[in-house]
C-alpha cells in the first residue's frame, strides 16, 4: 500500500466523530478516491470507515460508548426540525438542504410542545440552540455561513436514516420496507 495522503488530517477529523463531506477538502477527496485503502488501514485498529450511500464518510460508532450530552440534544433538535417541516407540508429533504437557517428564526420555540421537549434535554433558550448547532458543526453536519446563519450538509442524512429506521420499527414504515427502500445500509 502506498502512503495514504492526508492520513493524519483524515484520522484527526474522523476520530472526533466528524463526518467527511465535500466541505472537508482535501481530506474528503483523498478518502473518496481511495476509500478501500483507508478502510483497510483503519481496520486493524478496530475502526470501521463507513461510506454512506449519499457519499460521505465516518467512523462507525462502537456500541456501549458513553454518550456525550450533546448527542441527545442534537437528536431532539433534528427531530423537531423534521416534524416542523412535515407539518408545514414541506418535502423534508428539499427543505433541509435548500434552506439557509437563521438561528433566531428556527421553529424550535414556536410551539410549547417543542419547548417542553427541549427542556427535557436542558435546552431553554436561543443560546442552547446555538450550542447545539455548534456541536453539529463539529460533527460536519452543518456549516455556518454567517454569524447566525447556517445550512445543513450531506451527513445530516444519518438523521433521516434514523427517522426511517424508527418509522419502520414503529410499524409505520412497513410499506417502505416492502417496497425495497431502506435506510442507508453502511
Amino acid at each position, binding site marked *: 500500500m502506498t502512503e495514504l495522503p492526508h492520513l493524519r488530517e483524515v484520522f484527526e477529523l*474522523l*476520530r*472526533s*466523530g466528524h*463526518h467527511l463531506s465535500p466541505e472537508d477538502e482535501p481530506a474528503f477527496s483523498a478518502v473518496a478516491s481511495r476509500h478501500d485503502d483507508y478502510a483497510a488501514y483503519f481496520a486493524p485498529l478496530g*475502526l470501521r470507515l463507513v461510506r454512506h450511500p449519499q457519499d460521505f464518510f*465516518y*467512523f*462507525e*460508532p*462502537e*456500541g456501549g*460508548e458513553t*454518550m*456525550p450530552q450533546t*448527542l*441527545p440534544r*442534537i*437528536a*431532539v433538535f*433534528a*427531530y*423537531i426540525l*423534521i*416534524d416542523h*417541516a*412535515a*407539518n*408545514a*407540508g*414541506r*418535502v*423534508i*429533504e*428539499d427543505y433541509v438542504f435548500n434552506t439557509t437557517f437563521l438561528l433566531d428564526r428556527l421553529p424550535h420555540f414556536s410551539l410549547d*410542545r417543542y419547548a*417542553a*421537549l427541549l427542556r*427535557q*434535554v436542558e435546552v431553554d433558550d436561543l443560546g442552547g440552540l446555538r450550542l447545539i448547532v455548534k456541536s453539529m458543526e463539529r*460533527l460536519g453536519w452543518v456549516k455556518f455561513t454567517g454569524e447566525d446563519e447556517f445550512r445543513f450538509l450531506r451527513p445530516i442524512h*444519518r*438523521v*433521516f436514516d*434514523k*427517522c*426511517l*429506521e*424508527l*418509522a*419502520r420499527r*414503529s410499524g*409505520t*414504515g412497513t*410499506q*417502505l420496507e416492502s*417496497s425495497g*427502500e431502506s435506510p442507508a445500509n453502511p
Partner: protein
Amino acid sequence: MRIPPQTFFHFCAAHVPLLRALAEVPAELSEAEVRRHIRAAAGPEDELPETTWRRLNELQILVPVEPGSDFYFVADPVRRVVAYLFDEAQPTTPEIIRGYLQSLDALDRRLARAIEGDDLTTVRLALEEIQQTLRRIAADLDETHRCILAEVARYKAERQAVSVREKFRRIVHWMERYVDPMVDILRPDGPLRAAFIETDRLLRRARENGLFNDLPALDRNSRLLRWVERHALRVFRQCRLELQPLYESLRRASFMAAGAAAALDRLARDGPDRWAPEHVLQVCALRWQHVPSDAALDRALRNVAEHPPEPAPVLAFPDEDPAPAAYQRRLWLEGLPEAVGPVLPVDDLLGWLVGRNPRPNTADTLAGFSHLVFHPVFRARFTEAPVARYPTADGELEAPPVRLSAS
C-alpha cells in the same frame, strides 16, 4: 319538461360564474347554500336572487335529490358542459374502463352474429358503436391524464397548505385509485388487450368473409383500435411518470416525519434517560490516550533508580497546652468540699475562701461560696457578727459572715 335551448343558453350566458361555482361543488347542495352562491355571484344589474333561484329550478339546472327534498345537485348534463367549457377534467376510474371493455365484448358478440348471418345493418350499427366506445375510452383516459396533471400542479402550488402526511395520502389515493389498477387492465394479458384482439379479429373477418363492403369504415375502425391501444398505454405511462416522483418523495418524507414524530412522542412519555439509547444517533468519539514513549519510560525508570534517600519524616509533636482555664476552675470548684471538710466548722466561709492561696477573684469566690452553701453535706447559716469586708483578687466583697458546718 322540455326546455327551450335558447332560453337555457341565455340564462347560462348571464350566470356563468354562478354555474361554475355550483358545478364545482361535488356534494349535494342545500337550498341555503344555493342561495348563498346566488348572492355571491350576483351583480348590480342582475335580476333578483329569488328569480335566479326559480329559473335554476325551472331550467332543471338544479335537480332535487328526491321529490320534495331541500337538497339539490347540479344536473349531470350541465355539469359536463361546464367541465367541458372550463376544461375541468374528471378522472376515469378503472371500473369505468372495465365497463367500456364489457360493452366492447357485447358489441363483439353482436358483430360476430351479424357477420355470421350477413346482417349488414347490424354490422354497420355495431361498427359505429365500437367506434364510439373506442373514442370514449380515449377521451376518458385523456381526461384522467389532465386530472392528474392538475393534481400535480395543485400539489406544487399548495406547498405550505397541508402536511406532508396529508399530501402523501392524496397522492397515494391517486396512485391506488386511478393509476395502479390500470396495470391490470393494460397489461399484455389483460382485458383491454384481449378485447381489442377480439375486435380486430372480427373486423378482419368482416372484411374477408362477410358481405359488408364498406371497407373504409372497417379500416377506420382498425386504425382507431390500434391508436386507442397505443394511446391508452402512453397515457397510463405519462400518468405514472407524473405521479411516481411525487409519490416516492412524499412517501419517504412521510415516513421520515412519522419516525421523528414517534421519537418526540417517546421522549415526552419516557424522559431523556430511557429514550436516548434507542433514539439518539451515535457518533464515534475516540478518547485520545498517548502511549508513553521509550524516552519517557527511560526517564521514569532512571528517576526511580537514582532517587536520593531521604531521612524519615519527623513528626512535630507540640508541647501539651495547659489545661483550659474553664477546666481548671471546674477542678477548683469540685475540690472545695474536700478542702473544707477537715476544717469544719468554719465560722466565716467567705473569709476562708478569700484566705486560700491563690486568692480567687470575685466571680470564683461567689461561685465557690454558692457551691458550698448549697452542697448537700454541709449546712450554712448567717452569724450575728457584723458585716465584714473580703478582698478578692480583683475587688472586694462586703457581707455578714456565714458559718459552714457538717449537716
